């Protein structure tokens, strides 16, 4: 199509050729002009900070003597020093380990519940569908900091209504903010906020399935449960893969919940999650250089994990499309 449109003016003779060429050149620039705002914004707010972070990650600050007075501090090239110390930092390894445990608790529970709710909402006999859908989705609209504060109050035995009830029954329930249970406490906040969003994604995918398939299955004698497990779940597999991927990335980046809960308990350190470690290094310890190196490592790891995950599940999830 485009080829014929472009070739048309060339074959047509015209007296005012130069001005025509100018119009053509101008026309060729139009798409770039339209792209310009996007490109500029991307360059200024995405590309430039990323390159600056890369640059900083290879620098460090050196001090001489007491470090007091002018000129005693200078920024020097550090090579891979920041990367080596970040990878060798036991706090970093520990934070990654904690986040993996957190993810193992959160992601299956969140996606399982989301799938269950999506299938229930999609089932024929379900009543008060709109109300249920909204009330399950609503927590997603609450910012993580707010929900962490709310849950923080509910977790603290002295101010929590739950613990008041437990006490009336004479049960001795351990504090959810104690070191053994705090990961569950944080995962619960993520679960509360995340189920609704994932459910909506899955439910939307279910709505897109043509109803003839279900009719055919019913005629063949399949029960509601069989339809759900053998037809609905395999059909929305791509949506499941996508939500799993997003959930895994969100898990690696957990920050707001543990940061908000930290002042309430002794069992969360300032390096509980990898991003908290980056934040502490950059803004508490004034060491943006090693914070930059750790950021790059986390970004690369996130990218690698997403890529591997997609490679592994793609064939199974999207197999029928090939």
């Amino acid at each position, binding site marked *: 199509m485009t080829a014929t449109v472009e070739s048309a003016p060339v074959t047509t003779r015209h007296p005012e050729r130069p001005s025509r060429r100018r119009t053509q050149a101008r026309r060729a620039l139009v798409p770039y002009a339209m792209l310009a705002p996007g490109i500029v914004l991307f360059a200024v*707010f*995405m590309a*430039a*900070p*990323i390159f*600056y*972070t890369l640059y*900083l990650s290879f620098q460090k*600050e*050196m*001090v*001489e*003597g*007491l*470090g*007091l*007075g*002018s*000129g*005693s*501090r200078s920024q020097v090239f550090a090579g891979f020093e920041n990367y080596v110390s970040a990878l060798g930092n036991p706090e970093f390894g520990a934070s990654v380990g904690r986040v993996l445990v957190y993810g193992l608790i959160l992601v299956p529970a969140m996606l399982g519940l989301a799938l269950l709710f999506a299938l229930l909402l999609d089932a024929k006999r379900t009543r008060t569908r709109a109300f249920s859908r909204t009330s399950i989705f609503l927590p997603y609209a609450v910012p993580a900091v707010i929900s962490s504060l709310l849950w*923080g*109050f509910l977790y*603290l*035995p*002295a*101010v929590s209504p739950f613990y008041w009830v437990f006490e009336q029954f004479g049960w001795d329930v351990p504090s959810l903010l*104690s*070191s053994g249970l705090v990961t569950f406490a944080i995962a619960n906040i993520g679960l509360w906020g995340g189920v609704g969003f994932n459910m909506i994604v899955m439910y939307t995918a279910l709505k897109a399935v043509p109803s003839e398939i279900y009719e055919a299955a019913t005629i063949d004698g399949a029960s509601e449960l069989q339809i759900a497990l053998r037809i609905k779940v395999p059909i929305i597999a791509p949506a499941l893969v996508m939500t799993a991927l997003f959930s895994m990335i969100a898990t690696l*980046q957990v*920050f707001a919940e543990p940061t908000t809960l930290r*002042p*309430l*308990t*002794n*069992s*969360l*350190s*300032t*390096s509980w999650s990898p*991003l908290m470690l*980056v*934040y*502490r290094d*950059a*803004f*508490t*310890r*004034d060491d*943006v250089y090693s*914070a*930059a190196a750790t*950021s790059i490592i*986390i*970004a690369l790891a996130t990218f690698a994990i997403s890529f591997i995950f997609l490679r592994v599940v793609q064939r199974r999830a999207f197999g029928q499309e090939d």
Partner: protein
Amino acid sequence: MRRTLRLGALATAAAAALIMTGCAPDAGQAGTADDPVELTYWAWAPNLDKVVDIWNEEHPEIQVTVNKQDGGDPAITKLLTAIKAGSGAPDLIQAEYQKIPTLVASDALADLADAGASDIASEFPDGVWDSVTLGGDAVYAIPQDTGPMMFYYRDDVFQQLGLSVPTTWDEYAEVARAVHTADPSKFLGTFSANDAGWFAGLAQQANSEWWSIDGDAWGVGIDEEPTQKVADYWGGLVEEGVIDNKPMYTPEWNAGLNDGTQVGWLGAVWGPGVLSGNAADTAGLWKAAALPDWDASQPSNGNWGGSSTAVTTQSKNVEAAVEFATWLNTDPEAIAALVTETGIYPASTAAAAGALTEAPEFFSNQPDFYDVAAGAAASVAPFQYGPNVNVAFSAYNDEFAKAAEAKSRQAFLDALTAMQTITVDDMTSSGFTVK
């Protein structure tokens, strides 16, 4: 991506700061009423601008504009960014004492010794003056307020149990046991792993030297006898279970202040504000006393909080700035306004005595409140902060949180060792000479 965005935000902040300097004063000449010297002042104390208004009215030749900051930490982060960027810093900044060495190490603070600041040393207690000179000849800031530590307790509970106010730490431990035995839900206090400044104050009282300057080298003495004594003492009480192990300033702690399960609090002179804000209904039930001593014959105290007025290296009007800062922190009229408007406890000894006569409303049952406070302020031991207080403080949060959770005396001592190691490692890896 979010991390890189945050760095971008830093750059934006720097750019914004650049724009703000567009209206900085042009030359260093003395101002006149028609062509005044204009000074910018970053501060976060509430209502400070009202005190500055008094100055501006009386001194048409030097006009000061207060630029309200979010708090001590964000203001310093912003200042360090402006210093790195080469412009954008204000003339004056409100700086907490523990931030001064960090700021000096980043070459952010001007030496005020030659601009007339040395002459007012006698206005302030020695311990406070040391923290703005770092023990040398330079003067990096003018002290504004201090936070001598005090012991707050529920007088009604003490009377009910027939307890007397502890004057030594041994007595404090006895009272803690008595309170907890009488009612296991009650504690005389809590060991807070969240408040490094609080622990530093307790260490200061025990005559610790966390940092020291020896010729060209820094000494770090966190894990040494005085602080070990403090850590061992608190570890013992927490292990025994007679002192709570939960952090301060949580909803749970507030509930404890209200319902009487927290029977005492090791706070500072600004405590009435905290207590009236968090437990207003308990007004009249509390009393204040001096911090218990290690040795009753040698009263000593520590500081928790307090800040100073510093002049930045980017200021072109250091002398005018010093003139203003001196007025703000020593003039009786200014101090009186600071006390009523911002509610601080002034560092200037004479001015504090003149301005603070009537006890705070929350302590109307204790008319001699400010006499107790004056005694607490007079016995503050000297204490030197180092160039990486931020690192040591965040190490305190992490290591002592673990120890408090473990409720073991040995864990407290291990935490102190870890705090020392992290602090020294950070200094050596940045290139500081550490002996």
